[in-house]
């Protein structure tokens, strides 16, 4: 196992003390909310870091992969809606078979016809006819499915399995999409690739937003089952009440009146149940994060990781040494996307709901990238650190801005137009912070806060 340098221990110390600080100032429940999101962002950041930091493959499709992970959570955990399957199942099946036939036909034509101009024409005609045929079955089926109890269902539902399986499935889904994107786009130059992956993630999200039979679209899926206990069950279970009593025994013993004591205990149980749920999430997420961290580090130190660095640093030389650059790029792109997909499934698990319109590529893709760059590309601990620090800054920017504005405008009276305007636009200052952090890091510490270690071997 790897050893940490001193500054890396300092970074870990900073991360832990930040949460303890927030715990004391703003409450433990809030601190745990931030911690959970931080862990998820750290996993996403590791995903991006693997493709960008190890091999220099740019991946701006983060939101698309994240949304695929979210879709996996819905498909795995939501109970199946049998009625919808009955009315639309065959139609969808037929269109799926037709789609597969179309894909094979196009692949076959590409093999048989050599002359390029002919190839495009024939392909174009076949695809056009195929789409018309597919649409015929598909539109009927989807319309039927969406008519099934539209207020509550209106989509196919899922498999009804425990949601924790979806973390794995989410990775697979994202990997599948990434494979297709990689096949299409990885040959492009890096800045083209950036824009194309960004655009494709936009396409993925808009499909999820508008194909209601699959994901319920903008109507959102709510009430996904949790992998951890519900607060209300905890509050009614004896062992939990005993636990809370035991933990707070000194506080409880100070209260003499029996009624007051019961009230205090009830409050403590209610608070404690919320914290317990968030803590269980945090533990689950931490386990996943540490597993990914362990394997990411192993991979980086392995001969495969060395080959990836070689490809990143000099593609031509690596190619000349007989490394299949195209294939390795595809592999690492898919791995990175799969990790982002896992994070996506975890995110939906944490929220218990799936809102496709919440995935806004232009907004959040770059936040993840800021995490990667601030933390230090090529260093997994840096990625985790970046994820923690930037998410922390993102959340704490608003209170901080309010404080600063209030301090600066102390002399103005509370009804002053400028002061009110500034206080109203507090949420937008976080973008300013993000931009400034990115610009400053790129200028003065371009390798990130915890830079990649230079290995001599």
């Amino acid at each position: 196992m790897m050893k940490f340098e001193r500054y890396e221990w300092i970074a870990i110390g900073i991360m832990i003390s930040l949460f303890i600080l927030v715990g004391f100032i703003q409450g433990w429940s809030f601190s745990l909310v931030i911690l959970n999101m931080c862990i998820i962002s750290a996993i996403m950041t590791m995903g991006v870091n693997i493709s960008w930091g190890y091999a220099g493959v740019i991946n701006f499709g983060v939101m698309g992969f994240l949304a695929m992970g979210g879709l996996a959570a819905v498909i795995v955990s939501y109970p199946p809606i049998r009625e919808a399957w009955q009315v639309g199942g065959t139609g969808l099946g037929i269109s799926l078979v037709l789609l597969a036939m179309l894909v094979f036909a196009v692949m076959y034509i590409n093999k048989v016809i050599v002359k390029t101009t002919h190839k495009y024409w024939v392909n174009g005609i076949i695809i056009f006819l195929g789409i018309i045929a597919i649409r015929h079955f598909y539109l009927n089926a989807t319309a039927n499915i969406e008519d099934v109890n539209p207020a509550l269902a209106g989509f196919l539902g899922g498999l009804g399995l425990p949601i924790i399986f979806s973390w794995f499935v989410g990775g697979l889904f994202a990997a599948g999409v990434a494979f297709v994107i990689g096949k299409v786009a990885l040959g492009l130059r890096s800045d083209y690739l950036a824009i194309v992956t960004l655009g494709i993630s936009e396409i993925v999200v808009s499909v999820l937003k508008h194909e209601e039979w699959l994901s319920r679209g903008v109507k959102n899926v709510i009430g996904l089952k949790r992998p951890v206990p519900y607060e209300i069950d905890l509050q009614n279970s004896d062992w939990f009440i005993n636990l809370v009593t035991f933990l707070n025994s000194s506080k409880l013993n100070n209260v003499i009146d029996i009624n007051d004591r019961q009230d205090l205990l009830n409050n403590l149980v209610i608070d404690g149940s919320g914290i317990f749920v968030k803590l269980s999430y945090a533990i689950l997420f931490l386990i996943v994060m540490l597993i990914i961290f362990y394997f990411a580090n192993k991979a980086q130190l392995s001969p495969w990781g060395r080959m990836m660095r070689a490809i990143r640093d000099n593609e031509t030389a690596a190619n000349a040494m007989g490394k299949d650059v195209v294939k390795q790029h595809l592999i690492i792109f898919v791995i990175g996307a799969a990790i982002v997909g896992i994070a996506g499934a975890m995110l939906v698990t944490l929220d218990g709901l799936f809102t496709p319109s919440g995935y806004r590529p232009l907004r959040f893709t770059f936040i993840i990238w800021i995490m990667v760059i601030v933390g230090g590309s090529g260093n997994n601990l840096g990625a985790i650190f970046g994820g923690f620090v930037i998410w922390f800054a993102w959340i704490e920017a608003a209170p901080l801005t309010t404080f600063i504005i209030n301090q600066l405008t102390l002399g103005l009276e509370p009804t002053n137009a400028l002061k009110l305007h500034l206080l109203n636009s507090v949420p937008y200052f976080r973008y300013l912070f993000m931009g400034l952090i990115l610009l400053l890091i790129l200028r003065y510490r371009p390798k990130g806060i915890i830079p990649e270690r230079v290995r001599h071997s």
Partner: protein
Amino acid sequence: MVDFLNSLVVLLNFIIIPGLSYGSQLALGALGVTFVYAILRFANFAHGEIMSFGAMITILLTWFFQSQNINLGILPTALLALPIGVLATIILCLISDKFVFKYYRHQKSVPVVLAMVSIGVMFVINAIIRIIIGTETIKFSDGQKFIMKAKQFKVMTGLNEGLAFKSSQAITIILTIVLLSFTFWFLQKTKTGKSMRAFSDNEDLALLSGINPDRVVFITWMIVGVLACVAGALYGLDKSYKPIIYLNLVLPVFASAIVGGIGNPFGAVIGGYVIAFSEIMITYAYKKFFVYLLPGPLEPSGLIQLLSTDYKFAVSFTILVIVLLIRPSGIFKGKVL
């Protein structure tokens, strides 16, 4: 015959005129992206926000003029505010270059780093815009709204279908023609334009022959500022101004620039129209058109729509991916101004 004319009017009203005006806005935006790419050699993600900034300044000035009762009669007041907006946008571009991009240019950073830097700039401008003007939808067109109203057209020609032509669309098309012809004249005929083309073609050779790189960069940012501000203001005038829409506008703008061949100004213009027309044509429901053209029994029952309008945004990227697969350097060979 009347049916044929009716169907033509349907096409003109719902596809050609909106396509031309949206295409012009995209073309101006894409031209700006292409200039930055050809001279400064990076993909400027902040371009959408620069457009937004120009539009915002124009709106603020329009409000000021309106409050002072200064107007242009039948023309929108925004046209009066536009030159000052352009000036402000140029200043913004120059400031961002001086404090941010210049350093990396002198460091000879790789394009990806510069693209990341432009994302930082994007966030900062984004925040400034939202802090100043908020996030609400703003309509700021005034003066005469229509050159030709649908009803007026029906009465005039006796056809069933109306043809509406907004004055903002006319202004967009005219201004685009003026700006494009000026830009191409500048690039082809003037000495500065030629030096810019030389610089984009081969930087070292251009430096050797005594071209001042700082001057070229300065002129580039000026042109980018003009194009971005006009594109942004026209888009807002034609539809409405909303910061989030401008944030997303950067995607079709990039798609246009790449489809046409990034770095090639002519390609950027063509790319803009290709993207605009494909977005509109693929998501338009052709039912009305075919009802006029086909005889009774053949009349379509469905909407005859290739994709629902929900996918408007996805279309531009599908086109982009297809073009990149077939011709990786875009319709016109890119990378040279």
